[in-house]
């Protein structure tokens, strides 16, 4: 295992930001962009709403680590519980070490190379973000930071200053990519992830499904993960972005994700939050032109010591647009799950149809569930509805499942898997299987 390391000292200042930019050989405009973002970050106060960030000391972190530096553990030091989880979830052997933060290169080069040439034939670009900047500078500059500018919020400013890693995806007009883009990047995205910056552009008539993350718990040495994801869906295109997050429970996961949807375009966010100590994430879609559609499906499981503060935002700027938000959450063993959402119809956006459905399951009396939605309309010819419910597992359902021979834990697992079925249905098969197994394990662990 290689052990050379590039690591900036703790804390953040313009010298460190400049060093990051130099390490990556970036053009002058990007360096300036980073430095301006740093100023904005320093000026903005911490958010006073959302989850409790008081224990996050932003000055006590390293802001740049070359990927290989993260591989600090040896397999012997990986906790047994994690090893068992990998087994139970059926994670392929080749992936286990990498996910556990141990060395070993994932033998994906072969797979990746053949996919790369397949995409190249169609004109599809799928690279890490730094390579995207380097190899396609004009295209990159045209779209970069147009959806989420640095002043959007404090953590978007932070990401703008120190971003590293992430994906740059460009799909030419009328190209439909059938298989989800994941493969190589499943591992890659998971191990880096600290300040990823992802940019996806779908030209008119194209479609793409991007999948990131992993259901197995991922060891992360660094406790702050602040990513930015920008999607641009041009006329008649479709972008589906699936995330499964199961960061270790020392991580603050603060993400800004937003999409612009143009005429008749559809953007779907499929968001699964299982891990981290604190997650604050509200995937958003701005429906800019008539016929645009947003679908946001999110689930959050908050266990002991966790706060999942997740939700969705849809802003209807144009008439004849529609959106659906389905948010499901499970709180157990003292965990807290909060839904925070915005459904907004601007002036001029007539004939809008929007539905929000939030369902929360409380598994015990120590846990907490919150819902904080806002529904706002500046137009009248609209149909906006929001509904939320909080309940525990229905005793009648449990009895019925047990009367068919399932024991307590099996009955709970079956019903909870049924509860999240609309989400799991949207995932590629192998993820769906892993999530079901993950829930089964979580139910066995929880106090019934």
């Amino acid at each position, binding site marked *: 295992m290689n052990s050379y390391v590039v690591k900036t000292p703790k804390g953040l200042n313009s010298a460190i930001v400049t060093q990051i930019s130099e390490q990556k050989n970036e053009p002058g405009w990007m360096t300036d962009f980073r430095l301006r973002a740093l100023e904005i970050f320093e000026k903005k106060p911490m958010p*006073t*709403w*959302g989850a409790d960030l008081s224990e996050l000391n932003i000055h006590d972190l390293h802001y740049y680590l070359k990927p290989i530096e993260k591989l600090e553990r040896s397999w012997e030091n990986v906790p047994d519980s994690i090893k068992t989880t990998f087994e139970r979830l059926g994670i392929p052997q080749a992936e286990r070490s990498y996910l556990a933060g141990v060395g070993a290169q994932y033998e994906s080069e072969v797979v990746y190379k053949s996919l790369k040439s397949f995409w190249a034939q169609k004109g599809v670009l799928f690279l890490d973000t730094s390579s995207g900047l380097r190899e396609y500078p004009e295209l990159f500059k045209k779209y970069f930071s147009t959806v989420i500018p640095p002043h*959007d*919020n404090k953590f978007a400013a932070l990401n703008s200053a120190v971003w590293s890693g992430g994906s740059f995806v460009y799909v030419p007009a009328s190209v439909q990519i059938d298989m989800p883009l994941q493969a190589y990047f499943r591992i890659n995205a998971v191990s880096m992830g600290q300040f990823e910056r992802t940019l996806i552009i779908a030209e008119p008539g194209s479609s793409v499904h991007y999948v990131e993350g992993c259901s197995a718990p991922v060891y992360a040495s660094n406790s702050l993960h602040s990513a930015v994801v920008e999607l641009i869906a041009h006329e008649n295109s479709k972008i589906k972005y699936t995330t499964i997050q199961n960061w270790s429970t020392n991580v603050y996961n603060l993400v800004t994700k937003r999409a612009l949807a143009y005429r008749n375009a559809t953007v779907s966010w499929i968001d699964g939050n299982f891990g981290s100590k604190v997650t604050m994430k509200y995937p*958003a879609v701005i429906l800019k032109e008539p016929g645009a559609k947003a679908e946001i499906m999110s689930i959050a499981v908050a266990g002991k010591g966790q706060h999942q503060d997740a939700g969705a*935002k849809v*802003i209807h700027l144009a008439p004849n647009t529609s959106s659906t938000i389905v948010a499901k959450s499970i709180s157990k063993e003292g965990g807290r799950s909060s839904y*925070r959402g*915005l459904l*907004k*119809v601007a002036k001029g956006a*007539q004939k809008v149809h929007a539905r929000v459905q939030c369902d*929360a399951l*409380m*598994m*015990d*009396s*120590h*846990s*907490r*569930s*919150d*819902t*904080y*939605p*806002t*529904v*706002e*309309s*500046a*137009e*009248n*010819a*609209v*149909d*906006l*509805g*929001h*509904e*939320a*419910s*909080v*309940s*525990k597992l229905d005793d009648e359902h449990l009895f019925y499942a047990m009367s068919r021979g399932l024991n307590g834990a099996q009955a709970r697992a079956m019903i909870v898997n049924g509860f999240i079925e609309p989400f799991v249905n949207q995932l590629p098969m192998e993820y769906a299987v892993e999530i079901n197994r993950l829930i089964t394990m979580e139910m066995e662990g929880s106090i019934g």
Partner: protein
Amino acid sequence: MVNDVFPFQDSAKINDPHNNQLIVEKGQKLFVIDEQSSSHQATEVIVHDYAHLTLVYDQKSEATCLESNYRFELGAQAKVTLFILLPTSEQCTFKADIALQKSGAEVDVYGLYVVKGQQKVELLIQQRHLAPNTRSNVVIKGILLDESKTSFNGTIAIAPLAHNSNAVLQNKNLVLSQAARAVSKPCLEVLADAVQCKHGTAIGSLDEEHLFYLHARGFSEKNAQKILLHAFVQDVLAHIPDQAIKAYWQKRVSSCF
């Protein structure tokens, strides 16, 4: 800016000069009508064990700006039925903080706002379940015309010891003009598990399918709209115990078209 929309909910505060107190003694049954004469009013209502209170807040004051703060404390098996009928003033803020403090307490709140011209209404309601076996049901309907603006903030808060609580919150808004604007923020904060909580909110206009059906049965456009408006407010007005007040509000709804 889209990021302005997530402030924490404020709890209703009583911090103004006109303080009233209403006490309903143990086992007592009381019916009260409050038309609010002053521009600012704060009222503390204590409903003791087994008491029943029906309170109709039927705003009549002509003042430009009206504010009313209510705080309710319910004892064991106490029951409160509250009607909130607004507005008369140009700008009005109504806050109700309802604490179900002992087991068996129940509250039903029926609210209606019919807003015209440049009127602005702000309505804040908190249903706080602090004891087990408590029930709350809040149904608020709004009809918005002209250039009116309304903002509804509702919170259901269930404390850890409030097992077997049942809480429902509904806010539905019919926006009948293009310039009117409605905002609704219903919130849930649940810290106990054996509960049933639901909330729902809707903003929209009269259903076109329903309008068509009525036209096809021979109703004129105006009559069809009136029928649907009345249907919309039915589950609030039907419960009003005072016939004169009920009739007044039915007329007010009719006059929307």
